[in-house]
């Protein structure tokens, strides 16, 4: 399945005088997962809608596997499945019928349809509801069927716009597992959950105000933009008194320490992993009852905040 690509060429979309996406040029290719990040209103969904024919670009091209979606939508989307926002399914159809409709429309071989539908519904844990009308489903259940619809036709390219929306924590975890299992495909996924992107994606593209800020591997983005700051939460077996707090504040690399409750401290520090290791050891040596130490920021989060702040 090599040769898969998604490419934006000077892609722009304006709604009246508001430029939602502005001259976006981005080429994603290969078999990997690319996280698409940006604040609300940055242009992520608008970009994805242009790639799926839901809206037309004001100018520029949206290409999937080299085919312009406006010139030949059937060919462009023939090997691409997507989940944009939270689609609704015809309420009087069952999940099995809705997926059968899609598999017929997408040309899934007749002899494989039932098997693929069962597999897809199995992956999203919806087998028991397969023959019940979609109108009786909860929002999360509908989203599970929507996720199933994206893997049904074995596409080369998958576009996912915040696929975890509406799902409970278990559903989110299952979606992450599904995306991770799509190893031999090109997955382009927007999300506000940076931990989710860090877990399942190898690369990230970050946009703001409709413009691309950076596109690179997560490691490169983190090392270039995250700086050496970090944050952690420390838990104690007894209340942290003011004396202990002031001692912690005087430790090397600690910028800030404050109580989130009497037995928990939020600590911000600089100095990277070395400082983190030293801090953990020093807290243990202080004999103030430390029982847990958990990193609370990811490099990607710091890079994201740094980049978004820079564009404000």
């Amino acid at each position: 399945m090599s040769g898969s690509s998604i490419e934006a060429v000077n892609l722009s979309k304006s709604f009246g005088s508001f430029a939602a996406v502005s001259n976006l040029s981005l080429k994603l290719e290969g078999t990997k997962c690319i996280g698409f990040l940006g604040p609300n209103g940055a242009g992520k969904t608008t970009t994805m809608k242009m790639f799926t024919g839901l809206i037309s670009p004001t100018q520029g091209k949206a290409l999937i596997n080299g085919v312009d979606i406006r010139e030949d939508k059937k060919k462009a989307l023939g090997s691409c499945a997507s989940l944009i926002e939270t689609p609704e399914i015809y309420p009087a159809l069952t999940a099995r019928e809705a997926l059968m409709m899609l598999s017929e429309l997408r040309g899934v071989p007749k002899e494989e349809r039932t098997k693929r539908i069962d597999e897809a519904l199995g992956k999203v844990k919806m087998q028991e509801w397969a023959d019940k009308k979609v109108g009786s489903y909860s929002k999360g259940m509908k989203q599970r069927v929507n996720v199933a619809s994206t893997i049904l036709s074995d596409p080369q390219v998958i576009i996912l716009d915040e696929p975890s929306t509406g799902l409970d924590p278990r559903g989110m975890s299952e979606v992450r597992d599904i995306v991770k299992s799509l190893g031999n495909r090109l997955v382009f996924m927007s999300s506000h959950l940076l931990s989710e992107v860090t877990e399942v994606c190898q690369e990230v593209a970050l946009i703001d105000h409709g413009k691309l800020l950076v596109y690179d591997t997560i490691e490169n983005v983190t090392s270039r933009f995250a700086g050496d700051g970090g944050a952690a939460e420390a838990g104690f077996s007894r209340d942290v008194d003011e004396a202990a707090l002031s001692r912690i504040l005087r430790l090397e690399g600690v910028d800030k320490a404050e109580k989130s409750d009497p037995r928990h401290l939020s600590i911000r520090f600089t100095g990277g992993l070395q400082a983190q290791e030293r801090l953990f050891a020093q807290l243990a040596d202080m004999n103030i009852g430390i029982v847990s130490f958990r990193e609370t920021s990811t490099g990607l989060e710091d890079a994201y905040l740094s980049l978004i702040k820079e564009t404000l």
Partner: protein
Amino acid sequence: MIAMSANSQGGNARVSSLSQMRIVTKYAFLNYFRARRFYVMLVVVLLISALLTFVAAYYRPATFGFGTPSSQNPALTFYSAFWGSVPTLVVLLSVVFFGGDAISSEFQNKTGYFLIPNPLRRSVVYIGKWLAALGASTLILAVFALISLANGTYFFGASVPYQFVESLAFAWVYLVSALGLTFLFSSLFKTSIISILTTVMLFLIVFDIIDTVASVVAGIEPWFSITYAGGIIANVLAVPFPLHSVTQAFGRRFTLTTFNAPIPEALAIMAVYFVVSAALGLWLFERKEFTS
């Protein structure tokens, strides 16, 4: 059997637009058939039929052909009274129930987000849904036609006047045309209730006002009105077919002119309505954007 080309993509065959249209029609019809509104529509038609059957069986009125000499074709009089003006109402309700929000709901209910980002043309969805709505509406119209036939056969024998068959055919053509117009309004708006209300207002009030103002007030033939053309459904059951224009004098100064569309003209009006509204509706749907 689905027609597929040899141009395979990702292990799947490329499905022709015609086959995709059939698929959309099949599942949209299934959705209509199972939806509550189909049964509401069926109940409405059964209630109308029950009321007319009760009137015919209990009162046996002369307007239904009872007591009419056999030389004056009492069966035709019966069909004229039982069937005559009901199809336009059935068509109106059907197009509102099945077509009023057929396209606008794709935007408002977000079902379009499930269907449109697939390798198919938007016209496939539009025409597929139109055909499904036509199928559901035809089924409802057929139920009323069968009940009319059953009553006519019971009261006046199996000899069905050919005018009834013509009227049924005209009712179906009217349905095709009205559904085309309804889909245009449905693709004009993104809100279901607005597209439904617009359709209802248009067919129940606006066209009637236009017909009346044009013919009675201005003395102009309302050749531009689809409901005027729909008059042939009832008129074809009248013997002789009503004159194109009838002017009645009220006193010395006031005259009232009413128009009846001849069959070819009425069919032409319906055809133009269908072609123009279908082309416009498709054009609008192709360009409409799925924005939140």
